[in-house]
């Protein structure tokens, strides 16, 4: 490779109060290379990214760009040096058009100079073409699909002269086909000489895209290696520092009686219609489908967030009307939402408080808080679920994604639910924590819980589920039992290709 590297980090350290997030990370990136960054949640990936983009100042270590030492990076100078980051959730302005969004990234002589919109529009078109996106530059961003928004974001970064592009879990909310489109864009960027730092938990992506991979563990860079000649299990071993046992824990019980039964369920506002479903105690029903198929929407109907306007729900044979989350909780339904950073955990509040949030009426029957009991309960779940935290007093926002997910899970386990709805339980969670969460889910199911598990990770759906329900266009189009499911058929049903009894047009893009 040619010297000097585009970006070179040496011995970067960074602490937050008592937590040493980075304890000496070295990393380098060359132009025209895809360098994957791997590590469990809490290993320091996000912190490292924030150091590179100037959001955090490192406590120690050196940063060089093209051989020049950079004493201090702040977000503005990072941008000026061509560093850009793309996160899971596109950070675009939804009410502005594509052109306007791209224009915001383009160089402007000064704040008061006039913007030549026609010129900008052409530039935006060029940039969109460069990332292979066929998007009308005059559409408002909120009308675009998730992958389209991602492409707009990449175009914007390129427009801003990005030479170092950081992609943080870019495929987290994409479907299989969209992922392949993104691959093509990334490969194209590589040939254009852009250096890409690629973060993902999906092994197949790392092997498909990356030239080299650096593994972070507990704030240290453990190894940097070429992906050629590497295999998955070596990589996983490097990440977790231990062997990961069999990936998916098997079921140990036979499903008992029907816990949750749903007939002809529909909700106009969210596009869910004609859903029939039986969920038995002791089974995991995996929900597969493409983004927008109505899986999260169904979960929200069942949990009373957007209450159903047609159909019936019954629990243990008794009819139930669920008009609000409170009523869902009272009926024994728990919901671990997809977007845990926003809705699963209250970031400002201590972990212990978060865990008891949904059980106030039963846990504090006289409305008086019992702090001792709360602490015991929290410590119990911290131990049981292996939450990495010094105590229950730490605010939820201080934890890594996987640990927040466990806190969110604990909140619902504390309600002793009969039915637990998990929406993307392991999205953005590292391999080690992922298999822990899988074990927890299976253990709870063995104890008699009925689990509805929504996941876009096909391997997870196939591996974990006793039955699989495939949704398309707002309703369940096909069901598989654990044994007759294979990836191809499930995916085909999710894409609406199978000749199924329901012929549905996708509700919306």
């Amino acid at each position: 490779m040619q010297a000097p590297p585009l970006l070179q980090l040496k011995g970067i350290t960074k602490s937050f109060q008592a937590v040493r997030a980075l304890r000496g990370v070295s990393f380098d990136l060359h132009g025209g290379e895809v360098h994957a960054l791997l590590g469990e949640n809490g290993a320091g990936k996000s912190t490292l990214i924030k150091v590179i983009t100037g959001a955090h100042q490192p406590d120690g270590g050196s940063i060089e760009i093209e051989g020049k030492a950079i004493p201090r990076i702040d977000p503005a100078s990072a941008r000026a040096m061509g560093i850009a980051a793309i996160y899971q959730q596109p950070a675009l302005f939804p009410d502005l058009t594509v052109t306007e969004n791209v224009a915001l990234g383009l160089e402007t002589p000064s704040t008061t100079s006039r913007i030549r919109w026609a010129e900008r529009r052409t530039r935006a078109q060029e940039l969109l073409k460069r990332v292979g996106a066929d998007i009308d530059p005059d559409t408002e961003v909120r009308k675009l699909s998730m992958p389209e928004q991602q492409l707009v974001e990449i175009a914007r970064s390129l427009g801003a002269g990005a030479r170092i592009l950081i992609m943080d879990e870019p495929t987290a909310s994409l479907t299989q086909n969209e992922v392949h489109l993104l691959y093509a864009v990334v490969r194209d960027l590589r040939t254009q000489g852009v250096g890409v730092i690629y973060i993902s938990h999906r092994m197949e992506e790392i092997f498909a895209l990356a030239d080299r991979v650096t593994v972070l563990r507990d704030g240290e860079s453990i190894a940097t290696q070429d992906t050629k000649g590497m295999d998955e299990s070596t990589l996983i071993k490097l990440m977790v520092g231990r062997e990961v046992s069999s990936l998916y824990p098997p079921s140990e019980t036979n499903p008992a009686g029907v816990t949750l039964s749903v007939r002809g369920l529909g909700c106009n506002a969210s596009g869910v219609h004609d859903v029939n479903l039986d969920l038995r105690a002791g089974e995991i029903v995996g929900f597969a489908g493409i983004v927008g198929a109505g899986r999260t929407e169904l979960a929200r109907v069942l949990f009373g967030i957007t209450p159903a306007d047609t159909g019936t729900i019954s629990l243990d044979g008794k009819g139930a009307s669920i008009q609000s989350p409170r009523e869902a909780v009272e009926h024994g339904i728990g919901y671990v939402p997809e977007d845990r950073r926003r809705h699963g955990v209250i970031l400002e509040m201590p972990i212990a408080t978060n865990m008891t949030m949904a059980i106030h009426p039963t846990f504090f029957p006289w409305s008086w808080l019992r702090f001792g009991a709360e602490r015991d309960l929290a410590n119990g779940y911290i131990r049981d679920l292996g939450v990495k935290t010094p105590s229950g007093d730490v605010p939820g926002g201080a934890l890594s994604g996987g640990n927040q997910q466990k806190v969110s899970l604990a909140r619902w386990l504390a309600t002793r639910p009969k039915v637990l709805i998990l929406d993307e339980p392991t999205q953005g969670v590292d391999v080690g924590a992922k298999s822990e969460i899988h074990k927890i889910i299976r253990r709870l199911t063995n104890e008699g819980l009925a689990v509805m598990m929504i996941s876009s990770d096909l391997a997870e759906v196939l591996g974990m589920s006793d039955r699989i329900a495939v949704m398309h266009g707002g309703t369940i189009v096909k069901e598989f039992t654990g044994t007759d499911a294979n990836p191809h058929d499930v995916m085909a049903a999710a894409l609406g290709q199978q000749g199924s009894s329901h012929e549905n047009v996708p509700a919306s893009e």
Partner: protein
Amino acid sequence: MKRYFRELSVLFAFLAILLLLAFRAPEFFQPSQLLSMLCDAVPVLIAACGMTLVIVCRQIDISIGSQFALCSVFAGLTASSGLPMPVVAFVAILCGAAMGAFNGVLVAGLGIPSIVVTLATMVTWREALRWWREGEFVSNLPENFQWFGLSQQVGQITIIGIAILLFLFLAFALKHLSAGRFVYAVGSDKEAARLAGIHPQKVTFAVFVLMGALTGLAALLTAVRFPDVDPKAGQGLELKAIAAAVVGGVAISGGRGYLWGVAAGVLLLSSIAPALVFLHLQPQWEKALQGLIILLAVAADGWRAVRKKD
């Protein structure tokens, strides 16, 4: 300790003023002077307690000054019509709670931003009162109205005692009751609270009702100090309450704040005027000094937030 640094520094500032007065103007500590100063602080303290809940819930209520005036007039009219004092107290508090409920319905039920709703009700109540009473004082109050028919000193002690008991109850409830925690949860993240089975609308509504009821009580405890009821009472009360809450460490963005910090804020802000008098300084500096304290408080918060980010 570090966690309460903000609240403690306000308390120390107040103690510093007391210390200064102890050396330079010991006559400040005459019982009658202290009682009168604390009596002045009572309505602000009670209103600031309610305001703290409102702000922790990520709302604001700027209509309490007007509510205060209406409650005072209603209390005065009830008393002059010869009804017994408990009924008078009930009317004042109910009147405040009703106006709070009106705000609550508009904010929680219709989802209108509280700054807009309470701006509208602030103007409406005040103007309605002016149109109705034409600025006339309520006089002909019965014997048992002023100081509850007690001597001035016992009356003052009663008022201060009620305020302290109420404060202790509210501070305890906010920490030890589920309802208190729900207020923090809704103020931190409304959607997350909803997903946890809390009804953010009910919580928000309740907070506004409580704010109104507390304003009614504050109005009653102020009205009984004078021989007749001023229909222009309570002007600027909302600003005093918000200022005390902000100085006392309540985050205007919701989700954070402790009542005892707010009490320290009330004491600090209301000790300035008498301190200036006793130190023989120009009393017109009061507002400027209060402004400075508020600025220092918010600057400290800003400074802390900036440092935390890095």
